């Protein structure tokens, strides 16, 4: 859905740009294409590697690790799994719902969803390319710690 909006927006702006200035438009396409090629090799590598790692995970394995009774150990493990993996949201959310049905705890799922979205160990090489090592490490560590606050908030609200 949102993909279509992005395409619609990009194409209409491209047409508008072309009408206004052909030369500038050509330059814009060239610039976009160049940045795309710039990160393509690493991106292909990361995405394929994540696919490989995903083979070792399924809903049952995850449910066992992050069960309702798993407590803080489970929360920490869930946060680590989320930090390492790179699963698109529309796979991650249904998986998380499945894990919940299989006895996963809300706090654990909260930590998992949060680190999954905010922490990117696998994408760190890309992030370093743009922002350097120090910023990448600080940002990811802080997001990781923040995820435990999210887990606590989710635990409080969902426990009511």
């Amino acid at each position: 859905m949102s993909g279509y909006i992005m395409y619609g927006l990009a194409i209409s702006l491209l047409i508008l740009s072309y009408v206004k200035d052909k030369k500038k438009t050509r330059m814009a396409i060239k610039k976009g294409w160049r940045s795309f090629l710039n990160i393509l090799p690493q991106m292909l590598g990361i995405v394929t590697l994540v696919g490989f790692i995903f083979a070792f995970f399924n809903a049952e394995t995850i449910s066992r690790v992050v069960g309702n009774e798993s407590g803080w150990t489970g929360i920490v493990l869930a946060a680590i799994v989320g930090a390492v993996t790179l699963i698109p949201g529309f796979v991650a959310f249904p998986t998380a719902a499945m894990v919940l049905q299989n006895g996963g705890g809300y706090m654990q799922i909260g930590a998992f969803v949060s680190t999954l979205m905010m922490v990117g160990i696998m994408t760190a090489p890309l992030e370093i390319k743009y922002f350097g090592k120090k910023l990448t490490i600080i940002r990811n560590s802080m997001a990781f710690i923040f995820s435990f606050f999210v887990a606590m908030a989710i635990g409080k609200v969902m426990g009511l």
Partner: protein
Amino acid sequence: MIKKVLNQYKLFIGAIIAIVVLSFLNQEMGQRAIGMTTFSFKEMFTVLPPVFLLLGLLDVWVPRDLMVTFMGEKSGLKGVLLAIFLGSAAAGPLYGAFPVAAVLMKKGARFSNILIFIGAWSTTKIPMFLFEMAALGRTFALTRLMINIPGIIIIAILVEKMLKKEEITEIYENASKI
């Protein structure tokens, strides 16, 4: 030339070999890996073309002083809100945010706004929020959103404080080269 290309794609080639080997050892796991990889590839190639096209247009059409007014050093609350909005309206995985952030930096957006933009892209994306609500319930999704918005702003401020001025300058110089 070939060596350079091989070197660039070594992770990709290595991961493909790993999946092929895994498929021989355990068919079920191999299939899961291939399924996930195909899925992510589809996501990558549907989402990224418009992102990079918009990025190119932004680079060519938006003048630096306009960006400075709206997201620069003195943009204040306006800059923060715009950063949250731009990040949340986006589609696609977090790695799509980095090149966009680089162009925003090149145009003179304030560093904390860049960090807020990345935070928003990572976790308050509107399409993802709707999806989260459908899968995990309204209370779950809303609670996360409510804590995430102040969270990404606080993280942005703390990260900016933890870096030295020269380090930030260096990141900006690096971004203008990309």
